[in-house]
């Protein structure tokens, strides 16, 4: 019985990590209908930049953190300006492939600047674990849960009430109408990419505090896709809800199925969930069903 509680807690906390990355993805999809397959690599390069600031240049935390945020904003602006703006009206294959190309490019840049592929951030969170009954969870995870929920609240409020947020939703719906109203569509895209990269950077700092900075951050980004699909591509609520669901499925499924089947079953569960969701309910739990007309 004690393991059940541990599996539940671990599942929820790991799931919130995925949800945090998924929020960045949903943000870009919601405002420009572009699927950002380079999200894992953006998380990676932000984590390396944080390492650079904290360890290589040894800035104190209060200086390094804003610099990382600025870097993420700059990265988002650059990607949007140089790779996505020329492709504004192109078919979706071109957009997806260009993000794949960007991902590849970022990986190369990371290897170029930091050729040793594994490192660790200095300890940002205290070591002691938080005890919930017989189960334990490390402090980084508590922060992850807190920050994910905070970002979720911020984004939801932003999209509902702020002028820019409403403009983003409008752009996703109908670009031409938005332009006719005088809202600069390019500024909308630019802002959404900048914010998404910022969210990815925050996620990167938290995740690399847990597991170190490795190439595995990219793979964690891939698992976040299953969260996005389950929750619905254009729904923040979906990301926050689906994240723990996938985390629990991994944890409980792995926990109870592994002794019965093969070791490593835990890793394939998110992908099987993707296939099942595609067949049953492609738009996810909270996604908006798109109706297509000829």
């Amino acid at each position, binding site marked *: 019985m004690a*393991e059940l509680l*541990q*599996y539940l807690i*671990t*599942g929820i*906390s*790991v799931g919130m*990590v995925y949800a945090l990355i998924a929020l960045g993805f949903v943000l870009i999809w919601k405002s420009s209908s572009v699927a950002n397959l380079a999200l894992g690599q953006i998380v990676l390069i932000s984590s390396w930049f944080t390492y650079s600031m904290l360890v290589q240049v040894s800035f104190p935390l209060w200086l390094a953190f804003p610099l990382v945020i600025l870097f993420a904003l700059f990265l988002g602006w650059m990607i949007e300006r140089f790779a996505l703006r020329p492709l504004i009206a192109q078919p979706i294959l071109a957009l997806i492939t260009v993000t794949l190309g960007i991902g590849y490019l970022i990986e190369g840049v990371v*290897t170029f600047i930091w*050729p*040793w*592929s*594994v*490192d*660790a951030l200095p*300890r940002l969170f205290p*070591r002691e*674990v938080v005890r919930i009954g017989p189960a*334990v969870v*490390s402090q980084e*995870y508590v922060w992850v849960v807190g920050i994910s929920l905070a970002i979720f609240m911020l984004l939801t409020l932003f999209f509902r009430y702020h002028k820019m947020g409403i403009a983003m939703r409008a752009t996703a719906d109908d670009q031409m109408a938005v332009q006719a109203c005088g809202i600069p569509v390019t500024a909308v895209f630019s802002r959404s990419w900048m914010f998404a990269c910022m969210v990815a950077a925050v996620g990167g700092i938290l*995740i690399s505090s*847990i*597991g*170190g900075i*490795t*190439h*595995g*951050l*990219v*793979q*964690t980004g891939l698992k976040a896709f299953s969260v996005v699909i389950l929750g619905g591509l254009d729904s923040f609520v979906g990301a926050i809800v689906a994240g723990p669901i996938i985390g629990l499925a991994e*944890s409980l499924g*792995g*926990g109870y199925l*592994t*002794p019965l089947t*093969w*070791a*490593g079953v*835990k*890793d394939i569960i998110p992908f099987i969930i993707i296939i099942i969701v595609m067949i049953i309910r492609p738009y996810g739990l909270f996604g908006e069903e798109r109706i297509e007309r000829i």
Partner: protein
Amino acid sequence: MRNKKLITAITVISLALVLAALPLLSSACAGPEEQTLKIGITTPSTGPAAEKGAPMGHANLDAIKYINEELGGINGHPIEVIWLDNGYDAAKVVTNVKRFQDEDALLFGTSSSKMMSAVMEIANRAGFPGIVAFNAPVLHRPPQHIYGQMPDYGDDWTAFTRYYMENVWKGPGKPKMALHLLNNPTGYGALDAARAAADELGVELILPAEEHTTDTISEIESLTRIKQQDPDVLYISSTPAPTALIMKNAVEIGLYPGVTIGLGHAGITKALVDIAGADVVEGVYGVFPTVNWGDNVPGMAKMTEYCQKEHPDDYGNMDYITSWAQSLIMAEILRVAEQNVGYDALAKGGEEAWQAIETQGIQKLNYDVEGLHGPVVYTPGDNRLSKSVRIFQVQGGNIVPITDWIEAPLVKYEEFDWFGQ
């Protein structure tokens, strides 16, 4: 166009000339004749494994440079290295080895076991001998033309388990061992050895073994399962980052300190101590097949000198030591073979030269590798060149050796029907 017929005629004639001349052109590429001995080396200096492959490539070339410049090559014959990068891609390493064969290399060396597994078929079929730095059971069992420079991940397990049984385990009966493996040959190499040798060594394995990926962010769930089984010892065969995460999780759920933990040689590096924190990994055992930088062995001085001179960024990198030793071993093979059959037999290249290298070179090896790792002695039926490792322990944030060279016994994997071929 008036000149259309003329243009067509000229195009057709020139194409025909090119077609006829191509065979002649390509065969006329003979290089300057020099009395060299050729070897081929391919390393993953770009691509996903570049952080290991690049220093290894540097070390290979630096060592050959040292031999050519200061020792005059092999009895006056310089060693010519055909060095190609393979980008950790199977298809590329295949084309590289085919090129080595074409250009009459006498033997070839690669760094990683995955690269060697992609080319071992071609090399074995042609009888082209090869040396791989990081070994794996499938490469040298059953023994053919591929030789492993260092003990493989299975040997790590047997050596550690032997040490554990002799020095750490104090109870009656059999200790229970849990395994946590990376989901690739690094991890599963240890499982193969465990399945083959556990009974013999007197250890009870907790099966199925737990598995993890390189990008794992939490192993609390698998460690909870392990904790339920109440093991005495846990063996983790993985790379530094996931190992660090497992260690942190083990401390968090109270599994460690408590059980004894042993690591394979891929995991017990300085990166582990950095990522996990010295307090987490205190007292962890590990197995490693080479010496450390700064140890007092004969080969350390020259290696340090060349490293500082040519590639100062690589100083402190353990893979550099491995590849420097690999080049030394390849040179020694050439030296012994040249001594036994003479230069002319080797210079011809081709199958006879390869056979000579194997039977009169590799299989007559008895070399101490200048103390850089365990001695290299060939025993028939065993294609591992160096079979010894040392046990280390993390003490106060440093990885210190606590034994001398221990030899890992040979495991004949192919006798077990679960061993894939």
